[in-house]
């Protein structure tokens, strides 16, 4: 698709003052689009690949912004910009991998405007889909990224089901590894969804990346104290060190007793249509020493069952090594 340098096509913009007002608009207008920072949104509009008549900007709803201590954990409003998370002293001290994940997103300007909620709910970056091709995800009946001539270097090695696009978010694996809860509001009330269940793959619904049904809002993210202050690791590999989405990223948290790993969470992004929690690896790590051998076997186990496409075989060693490095880091940080 050519880059179009002119106006975005017309829409009606609403800026409700509270969550109820926003939910009402979403109920009233079938194709209403939720707008937070807009950094996922505007490309869709500029390319004419999505053309909603109604846009509901959450920007005036102040209660959706901010980082608050809550119980023995933290609650982050969905509209909080990523740069506030990256620079927040308590988040840096207790949940460093979330601060690092936020800092790994794009560029300072994108982080000043992009919200945590938008980063979580953002759509996939498969360029066939984003270019407006009528693929399965767009309601069509073909996957353009999985043909013998497709360019699919960035696509998935796990979880494909007709669609091979990946979850592109940097914050998502960190939130899965921290056992975060997503607070979802609809007109019938509020519910909490564990991060690991919030993201869905194409076998569940090929047109959505999350459980949100279009009439619901993500209002906050709650992070329990489970891994507060515990050893954490985040690493992202990308082509350029600014702007680029992850080729693979890893987020891990460890509870240790001396050299022994008592409990662990390991999640990997950009390898599947959802941030992928590696429960088998976590189970294998429990009770083991955080050492080189443990790291190696964790890496091997992590990529078991992967199904690379034509151009993304490199993601297997990349994912294996990132998981290994996460475990090895738990060892080096012990001394």
């Amino acid at each position: 698709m050519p880059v179009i340098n002119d106006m975005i096509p017309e829409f009606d913009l609403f800026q409700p003052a509270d969550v109820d007002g926003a939910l009402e608009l979403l109920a009233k207008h079938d194709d209403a689009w939720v707008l937070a920072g807009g950094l996922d949104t505007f490309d869709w509009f500029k390319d004419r690949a999505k053309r909603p008549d109604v846009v509901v900007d959450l920007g005036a709803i102040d209660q959706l912004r901010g980082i608050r201590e809550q119980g023995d954990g933290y609650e982050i409003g969905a509209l909080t910009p990523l740069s506030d998370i990256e620079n927040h002293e308590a988040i840096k001290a207790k949940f460093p991998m979330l601060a690092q994940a936020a800092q790994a997103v794009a560029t300072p300007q994108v982080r000043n405007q992009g919200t945590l909620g938008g980063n979580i709910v953002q759509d996939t970056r498969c360029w066939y889909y984003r270019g407006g091709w009528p693929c399965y995800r767009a309601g069509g009946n073909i996957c353009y990224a999985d043909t013998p001539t497709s360019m699919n270097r960035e696509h998935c090695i796990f979880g494909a089901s007709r669609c091979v696009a990946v979850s592109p978010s940097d914050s998502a694996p960190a939130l899965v590894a921290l056992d975060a809860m997503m607070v979802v509001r609809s007109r019938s009330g509020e519910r909490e969804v564990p991060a690991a269940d919030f993201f869905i793959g194409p076998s569940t619904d090929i047109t959505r990346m999350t459980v949100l049904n279009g009439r619901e809002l993500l209002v906050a993210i709650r992070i329990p104290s489970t891994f507060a202050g515990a050893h954490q690791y985040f690493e992202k590999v990308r082509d350029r060190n600014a702007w680029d989405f992850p080729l693979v990223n890893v987020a891990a948290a460890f509870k240790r007793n001396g050299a022994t790993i008592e409990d662990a969470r390991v999640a990997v992004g950009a390898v599947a249509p959802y941030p992928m929690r590696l429960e088998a690896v976590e189970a294998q790590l429990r009770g083991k020493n955080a050492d080189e051998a443990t790291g190696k076997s964790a890496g091997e186990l992590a990529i078991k069952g992967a199904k690379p496409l034509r151009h993304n075989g490199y993601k297997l060693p990349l994912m294996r090594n990132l998981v290994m490095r996460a475990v090895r880091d738990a060892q080096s940080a012990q001394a």
Partner: protein
Amino acid sequence: MDEPTTSVSRRNFIKGVIAGGATASASGYLFRQNGVLAQRSAPGSVERLVTLNVNGQNRPVDIAHEETLAMTLRYKLGLTGTKLGCDRAECGACTVLVDGRTHYACSILTHMVRGREIKTVEGLEGPNGELHPVQQAVMDEAGFQCAFCAPGFIMSMVALVEDKPGFTRDEAAHALSGHICRCGDYNKILNSAMRAGEIARST
């Protein structure tokens, strides 16, 4: 198309907007679907006629719902110092400050920054034409080659100098990582940033 209901004060406001919009005529093609009063407006949706705070001045302006800040600044307010490179949040040429923080003006709706303080490269010089430390530093170091990227880089340097006066070269590189310079002048740009820090600290 709905006939807009205009009150006297609204009509005067519109006149002001049109009179102030001489620069818009050359860019009329951009706004062909979105002209003053030509757009439908659903009940309860945002008011198009607003006053923006740009470089310390209040500027009345008519803004389409879908209009980006870069479009408003360049084609409605005549502030063409803000450049449009990619229009996709991928180059940094359009960087401006909103309440002191850097944003890509190509990728934010003008209606998202109503009521906030917008600063562009035109707003940097002092009341008597004194250069901002960053402008002085860029001159001293001959920081840019073609300088198409300069207004954007300069705005990020301004934010850096103000937020973190004692910054290191690495921190400057990090703060400027949301910009691309097609002339590849990064070393001289970083020299300028360091010099700007020195000037700011010594004044």
